[in-house]
C-alpha cells in the first residue's frame, strides 16, 4: 500500500513537472555520421488539436532510432510526418521544418509520392494486400515501372530472403498473402517495403501484435538490414528499444492545467545507452525505470 502511495506521489510530481515546457534535448552526444532527418521545432496539429509540440531531433544514417513514450505522446505522429503519411489525414498540419538529406520534406515542389518511394513504412498491424505473396512483394517494384518477369522474380526472392521469410513461403508464392500467420504477415510487409529498396524504413510498433519468437525474428532482421537502411521504430516496449536501437527519443505528454489539453513533447534524445543508463530528465528516469507510463 505504501509503495502504491509513493507511486501516486511520483505521478503527481510528474503532473507538476511539465512546467519545464522547453524539451531538454541538450545532452546530445557527438556523432559525425550523415544526418538523414533533421527535424527542427516541429509541431503537428490535427485540426485545432496540437498533437506534438516543438520537436527537434536528428536521425543518422544506418542507425536504428527508437521513439518511446506513453500513449498519446505523439511518437507515431512524428514518425508519420517523416514520410508525409499524415498528409492523408484531413486537417493534419505541420509547423516547423523537417529536412531529409538536406531537402525540405515539406517544400513546395516536393511530391509525397516521391517521398514515400524513398521512405517506406511498416505498420502496427500487418496489412498484406489481398493478393498472392508474389504480387504483394512485386507491388512496389511494379509501381516503379518494373515489368520484366525475371527482374521481378529476382526482387521477390531477394526481398523475402532479406525478411527471413523465403524458406517458409518459397513453395507457395502464388497463394494468398492473407493466409500467413501474424509474424509471417508482418515479415511479408517488411519484405514488401524492402522490395522498393528504400533509403529509410519507418516502423510503427511493428511487433506489438506478435509473440516473443516472432518479435525476436523481426528484431534480428532489423539488425541485419541496418547496414543498408536507416530505421526509425516506434515502440511501446522499452526492452525492445534497448535491444535494437542505437539512439532513443523519449516523448511524454504535457498537460496544460488551464485548458485541460494534452500535447506530446520530446523530452530527451540521446544514445540508447545514455537514455536508459544515465537519463538527464527526471521524467525520462521515471519512465525508463518503470515508475510512469
Amino acid at each position: 500500500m505504501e509503495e502504491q502511495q509513493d507511486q501516486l506521489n511520483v505521478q503527481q510530481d510528474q503532473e507538476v513537472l511539465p512546467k519545464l515546457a522547453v524539451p531538454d534535448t541538450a545532452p546530445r552526444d557527438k556523432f559525425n555520421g550523415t544526418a538523414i532527418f533533421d527535424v527542427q521545432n516541429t509541431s503537428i496539429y490535427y485540426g485545432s488539436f496540437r498533437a506534438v509540440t516543438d520537436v527537434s531531433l536528428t536521425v543518422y544514417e544506418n542507425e536504428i532510432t527508437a521513439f518511446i513514450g506513453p500513449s498519446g505522446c505523439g511518437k507515431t505522429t512524428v514518425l508519420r510526418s517523416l514520410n508525409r503519411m499524415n498528409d492523408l489525414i484531413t486537417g493534419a498540419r505541420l509547423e516547423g521544418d523537417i529536412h531529409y538529406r538536406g531537402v525540405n520534406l515539406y517544400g513546395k515542389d516536393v511530391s509525397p509520392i516521391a517521398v514515400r518511394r524513398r521512405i517506406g513504412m511498416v505498420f502496427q498491424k500487418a496489412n498484406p494486400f489481398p493478393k498472392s505473396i508474389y504480387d504483394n512483394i512485386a507491388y512496389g517494384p511494379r509501381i516503379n515501372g518494373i515489368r520484366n518477369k525475371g527482374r521481378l522474380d529476382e526482387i521477390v526472392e531477394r526481398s523475402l530472403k532479406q525478411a527471413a521469410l523465403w524458406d517458409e513461403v518459397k513453395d507457395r508464392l502464388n497463394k494468398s498473402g492473407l493466409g500467413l500467420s501474424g509474424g509471417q504477415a508482418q515479415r511479408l510487409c517488411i519484405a514488401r517495403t524492402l522490395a522498393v529498396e528504400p533509403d529509410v524504413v519507418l516502423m510503427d510498433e511493428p511487433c506489438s501484435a506478435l509473440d516473443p519468437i516472432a518479435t525476436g525474428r523481426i528484431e534480428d532482421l532489423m539488425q541485419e538490414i541496418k547496414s543498408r537502411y536507416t530505421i526509425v521504430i516506434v515502440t511501446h516496449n522499452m526492452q525492445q528499444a534497448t535491444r535494437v536501437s542505437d539512439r532513443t527519443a523519449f516523448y511524454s505528454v504535457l498537460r496544460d492545467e488551464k485548458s485541460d489539453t494534452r500535447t506530446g513533447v520530446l523530452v530527451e534524445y540521446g544514445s540508447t545507452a545514455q537514455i536508459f543508463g544515465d537519463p538527464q530528465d527526471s521524467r525520462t528516469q521515471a519512465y525508463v525505470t518503470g515508475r510512469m507510463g
Partner: protein
Amino acid sequence: MMAAASDSLAQPVDLREPTGWRRSKNQIMTILMWLAFVIVLIPLGFVLVTLVAKGAAAISWQFLTNSTIPPNVLPLGTGGMGAAVVGTLEVTGFASLIAIPLGVLGAVYLNEYGGNRILAQLISFMSNVMTGVPSIVMGLFIYIIWVTHFGYSGLAGSFALACLMLPIVIRSSYEMLRLVPDSLRQGSYALGASKARVTLTIVLPAALSGIVSGALLAVARAAGETAPVLFTMLTVEQTNSNLFSGPNTTLPFQIFMNAQSAYVGANARAWGAALTLVAITFILMIAARIITSLFTRNTR
C-alpha cells in the same frame, strides 16, 4: 479467500446450462428463428415450383428461338419467344453497359475522392432519392426526353433501364468500397503509390466481388421491369435485332401481354416466358460468380 477456494475444490463445478426462464427463453427464440426461416422459404419455394410446373411444358428450342410471337388465340407450339429473348438480352445488356461503369465510377468518386465536398453530398443524396423513384416514372422520363424526338427503340428502353440501375449500382458499390480497410490503402500509399493507383490496384480489386453482386442485382431488377419498357419500346411480333431503331420487346412485357389474355395458349406462353426470364437471370448470376472468383482467387 482460502476457505472459498477449498470449498470450490471440494465439490465439482457446475458448468451446465442454467435452468429455468433463461433456458426456456433460449429455446423459444431458437424455435422462432427456425420458424422465420421456414416462412421465408415458403413463398420462394412456391414461386419456383409453380414456375417450373406451369412453365416447363412451354419450353422447347422452338419456343426460345422462333422469331415470331404468335397472336394470343393460337395454341402453344406455334411461333416462339425468340424476339423477346433477343430484346431482353440486347436492351438489358446495353443498359448494363451504360449503368455499371457509370455507377461504379460514381461510387469510387463518392468514397475515394469526394470526401465532404458539396458535389459528393449532392450525388449521394440524389442517388438515394433516385432509388425510390418508381420505374414507371423512369419510363415516362425517357419517353418525354427521347422517344418523342427519336421514336421507339431498344435504345430508349436501355436508357430507361439504365436510369433505374444507376442508383442501385452506386449504392451497392459505395457500400462495398467503404468496407475496404483503410490499412490497405495506407500500405499502398507507403510504397509510393498515387491515389489513382491505390484505387485501381488495391481498393477496386478488394471490393470486386461485392461490386459484382450489387451490379447483378441491378441487372436482374432491370431485366424484370415492364413499365419503363412499355413507354419506350412499344412491342413487336418479329425479332428486331437492331437495338438502335424500331420498336422492340422483352420477356417481362410478353409475360404481361400473354398473361392478361383469355386464351390457354397465351397463358402457357406467359408461364414459359417467366421461366425463361428466371433462367436467364440465374445463368447470368452463376456466370458472373465464376468469372469473379477467377479474378479474386487470392483475395481471401
